[in-house]
């Protein structure tokens, strides 16, 4: 029964290897600059000291909303992924795969729109 948890162990191993590996690689090959800002605890770009009621650039909210949208849309892929194997067994796997490609294509058009309209630009 415990073997069914095998994939999770593999996932944990991959995640750990990815995280630790990235740190090691950047330590080995990265250019090193030392500044005061580097010593700060990471706070998503805002200053970590001072009052919490400061005004952030509107871009934070824009990107946050866009992230939520695409994040939540990808939620729809989960029931698809659960059901797809059954369809593949029934011999209509290709059609079902084409359907999800269509869904992703619609999301892709959305992303292209956001990109083209400059929703992802920081240097404005």
């Amino acid at each position, binding site marked *: 029964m415990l073997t069914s948890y095998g994939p999770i162990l593999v996932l944990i191993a991959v995640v750990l290897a990815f995280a630790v590996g990235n740190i090691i690689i950047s330590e080995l090959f990265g250019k090193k600059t030392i500044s005061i800002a580097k010593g700060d605890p990471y706070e998503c770009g805002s200053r970590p000291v001072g009052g919490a009621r400061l005004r952030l650039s509107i871009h934070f*909210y824009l990107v946050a*909303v866009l992230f939520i*949208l695409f994040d*939540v*849309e990808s*939620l*729809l892929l989960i*029931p698809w992924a659960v059901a797809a194997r059954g369809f593949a067994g029934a011999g209509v796997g290709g059609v079902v795969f084409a359907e999800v490609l269509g869904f992703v294509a619609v999301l892709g058009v959305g992303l292209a729109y956001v990109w083209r309209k400059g929703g992802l630009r920081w240097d404005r």
Partner: protein
Amino acid sequence: MGLGAYIAVSAALFAIGIVTIITRRNVLYILMGIEMILNAANINFVAFNRFGDNGLDGRMFAIFTIILAAAEAAVALAVVLNVFYLFNSVKPGEADLLRE
């Protein structure tokens, strides 16, 4: 825990949402109230599905409700932002050009 407990929670959430919408003047709170109502419906869907043993309808409905809520929140925030630019306020009472 029985079905009744879930329904009680969802009914309470629904009521809180309605009261929030009615009493608050700030549109962001109103949006929160709307989200609460949607989540109350979600609790219902999942609980009825769990206790009714009727396929996946309820769970699918819950997933789609989550997506609806996100989409609605995104559009609503964009609208609120636009209003904030033009009126310098997020209170519907202060946007009052349209009246008889």
